[in-house]
């Protein structure tokens, strides 16, 4: 079980810290009568009259609905291989920059906006720059981790076009890759003081039949400060694959498996999570809803480690059984501790 615990150390490391050390009142921001920052106050504006996106922001992992039918066959093979390896090669697990990865729109960032450039600084110390000096996208920029980004204002919406990525990064933590021809378009809106919305579209015909999009939402992290979250241990030390787990030789009788089928509900961190356990082709599968913010996929084959303990792609699942042998709850075992989900049906 070492492997999936190791995987989770890193995931825990990349998660937004639930409590920041700093409780620091920002000067000069609009406040409500109770002294709290007024998130509904008007959008701050820069010298050009355009919205100023500057500030410290935090947000949940965006939901990514990627239809496998939209991926080119070679990309589906790549994704399958990465799942087998428990996403060990994900750039952020390798202490490498995440580039355009959708999941990195989540978490802490600081935006600095000047008239000619916008910098987005991440808590892992990486950053990207959006040029605002009116230049065009380069025709043939050298491939880089963070790409080459040019922004322009359309009313109060900042439209950013990016190009020039290397093909070492992923588009999502689920293992979807891209080619060097990837183009990213973002539309940033700050409708008020406290909220930032980004619509992101990935276009890369050699890897995906059609462009695909998602939305990231961020909230102003007022009266606090962003802390560093530096990757120090790469996943090179991780050991094992999903195939190793499948070959571990533990078998659970079909009637026992059948007793685990059901719907389990509970909270993970601060999010509601539902785990539906299905039986398909004699094997258990966990379908997780509300998990995109936390782990690496919706459908997890559950590989038996004992009669009640299963492994689902790097996470442990333990069925809690009453004296009649019926499952009453399901525990998800993370490095950060166990979360219990009560059976609903």
């Amino acid at each position, binding site marked *: 079980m070492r492997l999936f615990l190791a995987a989770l150390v890193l995931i825990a490391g990349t998660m937004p810290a639930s409590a920041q*050390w*700093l409780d*620091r009142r*920002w*000067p000069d921001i609009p406040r409500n009568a109770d002294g709290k920052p007024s998130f509904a106050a008007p959008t701050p504006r820069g*010298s050009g009259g355009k919205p100023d996106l*500057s500030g410290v922001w935090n947000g949940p992992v965006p939901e990514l609905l990627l239809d496998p039918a939209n991926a080119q066959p070679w990309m589906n093979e790549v994704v399958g291989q990465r799942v087998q390896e428990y996403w060990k090669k994900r750039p952020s697990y390798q*202490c*490498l*920059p995440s580039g355009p990865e959708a999941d990195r729109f989540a978490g802490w960032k*600081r935006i*600095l*906006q*000047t008239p*000619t*450039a916008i*910098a987005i*600084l991440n808590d892992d*110390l*990486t*950053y990207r*720059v959006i040029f605002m*000096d*009116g*230049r065009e996208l*380069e025709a043939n*920029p*050298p491939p*880089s*981790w*963070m790409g080459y980004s040019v922004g322009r204002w359309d009313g109060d919406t900042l439209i950013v076009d990016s190009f020039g990525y290397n093909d070492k990064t992923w588009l999502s933590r689920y293992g979807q890759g891209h080619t060097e021809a990837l183009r990213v378009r973002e539309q940033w809106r700050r409708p008020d003081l406290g909220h930032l919305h980004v619509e992101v579209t990935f276009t890369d015909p050699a890897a995906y039949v059609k462009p695909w999009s998602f939305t990231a939402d961020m909230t102003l992290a007022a009266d606090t400060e962003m*802390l*560093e979250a*530096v990757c*120090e241990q*790469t996943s090179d030390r991780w050991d094992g694959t999903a195939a190793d787990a499948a070959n571990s030789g533990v078998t659970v009788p079909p009637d026992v498996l059948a007793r685990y089928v059901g719907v389990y509900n509970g909270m993970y961190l601060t999010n509601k999570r539902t785990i539906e356990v299905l039986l398909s082709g004699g094997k258990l599968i966990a379908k997780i809803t509300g998990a995109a913010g936390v782990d690496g996929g919706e459908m997890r084959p559950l590989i038996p480690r004992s009669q009640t303990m299963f492994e689902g792609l790097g996470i442990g699942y333990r069925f809690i059984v009453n004296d009649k042998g019926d499952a009453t709850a399901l525990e998800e075992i993370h490095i950060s501790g166990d979360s219990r989900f009560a059976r609903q049906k």
Partner: protein
Amino acid sequence: MRSFLAALVLIAVATPAAAQWLDRKWPGIPRTADGKPNLTAPAPRGPDGKPDLSGVWDGENVVARPNPSDLQPWVVDLAHKYQQEYFRTRPYYQCRPSGPEAERYAGWKRVLQTPTTIAIISDDLTSRVIHTDGRTLEKDPPPSYMGYSVGRWEGDTLIVDSEGFNDKTWVSRYGVSHTEALHVTERFRRADFGHMQIDVTFTDPGAFVKPWGFKVNMLLKADTEMLEAICEYSSDNWTVTKDTPVSVPADVLARYVGVYSGIYGGNKRTIDVTLSGGQLMVKIVGAADIEGGLGTAGLDPDAAQPLVPRSQTLFEAFGLGFEFIVNDKGVVTDLVEIHISGPYKFPRQR
């Protein structure tokens, strides 16, 4: 020889690229009559009237070599240990953030300045932030790689105080450590459009007997763009070969003794080869500004290093290869320094 070549791969990457791909005219900057950026035009100012440090800058190579007598003995001991390991645990070689390390003031940076925050972002994809919103230093900030920095203007000089560093970084590539109590004071002055100078002082009584520092000159890199230089291979992959020592007869060693000189990286370099206690020693003069920490003998620039024989003509020191070129009369004519970037020939002077 794999080990020292591996070390040099990283250094090659870390060297500021001599040519940037982009040849892009920046709009709205002062230019001379011939259309070139006017680097001596007045420094730009922000809406608050303070100098605006924003821009793409290239820092000159930094020489930050504290006098060993100004360091606490444990810091000197550790520096010697790191030197023996070819400085392989230097954070930068481990693909970790360099934090306050002096030599990382060199090279490419972009500065973005707003009235409340200044960001300094480096080509290795790390960033630091200086708060200029009037706050004071935290009493007990959590230790971090880049520290917690607060800046204030004194006339046209930005004075930045930083604390809250973790003790995983070095303050010099020569293996000089610091404690979590490190305090860094920086004075940024943008004298004109094209030039900025930074005065840096390190104070850390647990590590340094007295404060010490250095100056960095930065030049505006107008009409071009900063490129990424990401560390992808950590020095964990370096292998130090422990081959059976090759022995070279004393009379052969004696023939190699001499002074060799030539040009490396645009600078004159002299290599002094001597014999001491039956061992060949090498001392490089004029190397401190160029090499990435391998260059000379760590803290003591005058120290000679033993040349470890790898064959009858090939030796290793400082993580570099040294090959003596012998003519058909048995006379040594040249010494070739072998870097990953290629061999450099230094003719014998005497």
